[in-house]
């Protein structure tokens, strides 16, 4: 059988739209969040790359309600880089929910009759175990399995912020599913990665009809909107057609701007094994640990980079500047003797000499097994800004010799003095 005759696999990446992901501001003010570069690649390129390596993967459909023009260049680039798959962007006319969009584009997903399809949330990062998942789905002990859900272990208190999954330890059948429970159910949490069999569309069609009949939709929601978490997973439990694939691989959500520093570190670490050629290995510059530098960037030989730094296109780094645990976006320039630590610098930002831009990492608790990152709210209960990664929006000017500490600077701002623990509008 020739490859094209084989039914093959597809994938859907759910990226939602510009009014979602507000906790990612101010980074999402310039770049659509799914395209924010982490370890030098747009966030969802990591999804696409992992998917493109799955056997029989034919087509990857990106679903969201960003305007087409914001996604076109990226999609074109993906088709260019990953020749084995076709990548398309499908724009929802409005927010349809995680399952509503899939149902709306059912014909596009099912064209070519794929054997099964992946669904990946766009706002996660992981060492995706996709080969293992599809093999698990295809060789399931469960008769007529319709859904395989990826799950991972969290701490008990943190599990309440996620979808909680209970499985039969022997058969891995999904026995229970609750989204963000009020009390502890299970420390197995939903990773937002699924494999669905085509029969899932029958389930969605039934749900859709039900909703139309009962007109049970809240006024604020589109009648077409449906959610995987709410409408599919508990139904899978009821009909006994869902199963759980557990992973101990690295996985995290990307909700806040600060979480990109954590994601950047882990994707760079994966590159060190999977694509060491992507990491920066300059002979004349001192680097520490894993560093990504775009080939068009210019780094002075006396600058010291790393660990866990990503430098975007056309960035200029001056004499004796030190950068660690940070992401520097395109066209930004940094002067001499400056220090950037636990920070994200937006595009076309200018930083002076002897300037210090520093944030506080919000990494998972290192003393607890399975701890995830705490997506702290911006402000503490006392109304003070919680210390976090410092984020500088695009086109900001940070003068020489100031310190910007644990602060968020919105785009197009000319800073004139030092700031600590502030949001600068």
């Amino acid at each position: 059988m020739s490859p094209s005759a084989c039914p093959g696999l597809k994938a859907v990446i759910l990226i939602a739209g510009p009014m979602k992901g507000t906790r990612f501001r101010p980074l999402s003010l310039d770049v659509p969040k799914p395209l924010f570069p982490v370890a030098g690649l747009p966030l969802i390129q990591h999804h696409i790359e992992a998917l493109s390596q799955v056997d029989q993967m034919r087509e990857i459909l990106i679903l969201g309600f960003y305007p087409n023009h914001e996604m076109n260049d990226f999609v074109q680039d993906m088709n260019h880089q990953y020749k084995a798959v076709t990548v398309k962007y499908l724009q929802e006319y409005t927010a349809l929910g995680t399952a509503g969009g899939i149902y709306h584009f059912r014909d596009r997903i099912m064209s070519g009759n794929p054997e099964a399809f992946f669904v990946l949330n766009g706002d996660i990062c992981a060492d995706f175990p996709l080969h293992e998942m599809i093999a698990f789905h295809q060789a399931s002990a469960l008769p007529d399995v319709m859904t395989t859900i990826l799950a991972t272990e969290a701490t008990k208190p943190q599990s309440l912020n996620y979808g909680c999954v209970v499985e039969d330890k022997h058969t891995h059948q999904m026995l229970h599913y609750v989204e963000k429970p009020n009390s502890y159910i299970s420390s197995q949490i939903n990773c937002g990665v699924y494999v669905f069999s085509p029969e899932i569309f029958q389930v969605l069609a039934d749900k859709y009809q039900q909703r139309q009949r009962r007109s049970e939709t809240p006024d604020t929601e589109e009648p077409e909107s449906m959610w995987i978490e709410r409408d599919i997973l508990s139904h899978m439990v009821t009909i006994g057609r869902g199963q759980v694939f557990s992973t101990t691989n690295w996985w995290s959500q990307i909700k806040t701007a600060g979480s990109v520093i954590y994601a950047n570190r882990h994707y760079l670490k994966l590159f060190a094994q999977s694509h060491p050629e992507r990491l920066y290995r300059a002979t004349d510059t001192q680097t520490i640990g894993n560093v990504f530098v775009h080939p068009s960037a210019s780094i002075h030989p006396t600058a010291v980079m790393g660990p866990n730094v990503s430098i975007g296109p056309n960035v200029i780094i001056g004499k004796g500047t030190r950068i660690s645990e940070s992401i520097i976006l395109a066209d930004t320039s940094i002067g001499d003797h400056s220090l950037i630590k636990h920070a994200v610098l937006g595009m076309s930002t200018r930083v002076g000499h002897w300037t210090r831009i520093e944030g506080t990492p919000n990494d998972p608790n290192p003393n607890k097994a399975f701890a995830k990152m705490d997506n702290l709210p911006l402000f503490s209960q006392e109304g003070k800004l919680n210390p976090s990664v410092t984020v500088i929006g695009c086109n900001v000017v940070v003068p020489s010799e100031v310190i910007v500490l644990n602060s968020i600077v919105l785009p197009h701002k000319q800073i004139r003095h030092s700031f600590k623990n502030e949001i600068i509008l």
Partner: protein
Amino acid sequence: MKALILVGGYGTRLRPLTLSRPKPLVEFANKPMLLHQIEALVEAGTTHVVLAVSYHADALESEMAQEAQRLGITITFSHETEPLGTAGPLALARDVLQQDEDDQEPFFVLNSDVICDFPFQAMLDFHRNHGKEGTIVVTRVDEPSKYGVVIYHPESGQIDKFVEKPQEFVSNKINAGLYMFSPKMLSRIQLRPTSIEKEVFPVMASEGQLHCMELDGFWMDVGQPKDYLTGMCMYLKSIKDKHPQQLQTGPHIVGNVLIDPSAKIGTHCRIGPNVIIGPNVVIEDGVCMKRTTLMKGSRIQSHTWLDSCIVGWRCQVGRWVRMENVSVLGEDVIVKDELYVNGGKVLPHKSIGVSVMEPQIIM
């Protein structure tokens, strides 16, 4: 001629520096604070200096013995067994200040933390001219409400009265802590804890025995770190005006900078304005500093930025460090690479490995 310097106690306000050296030996502009006063006194003809101290410090005594020899004067210590305030020490040292009943030679009395262009010769001339028991020097301040102010006759300089912390403007001249007295004045003081400012001067003023002269130029009480740095800036400006050749010049120097010849400065640095660098200090490449004093033997590593700091003896400050906001490092402190120190007062022999985000004392 004789002088008495009120050295007093442990100099706790200038800790952590005074944990390693007695305050009079802490350098100001690369010279022990006390020597600024003693050398100026010697220049005005003083041959015997009495140091009124309330503690024993071997380092101070042996170092002062050497200085006495170098300057060809006598330096003696008057030890208080209990704190005697600002007047009591005069009674304790009476035998030195007035050798016999006929000794009518006036003597100087100084608060020890004062830095200025010491006007000792002018004080002597002024004192002889008015012929009364006491002369005090006054200086102008911007915010007189924080001090006790002096009200006096503008021509004669005769003091009318003192007003503590005035609520409304009455004068902007305050006592500068530099006095000259005739021995006769000693009869006013008993050997007990007494404040010269509060208990002796008002009486002398009411009897018309106290005159004041106004100080030209800068004045600062450098007894605590914040004022030490302000005084440093004033001192450097005064050097700039009087002996500009003592200041450093060069492409990486900005403003008034004093550097000991034995110090080594790297490339791509920016030093100044208002920096004093002590002997054997090493500054590596790409360092920027302003409004800072570095004491003997310290090393500042590359790319570090310092503003308003006092770095004590033999400290080591790492690379990409930022220290500011009146940070003071005691002797032999190590600051690790990439740290931020905001108003930290670090005790001697401490190695700090985490940033000091808010002003605090690091034990």
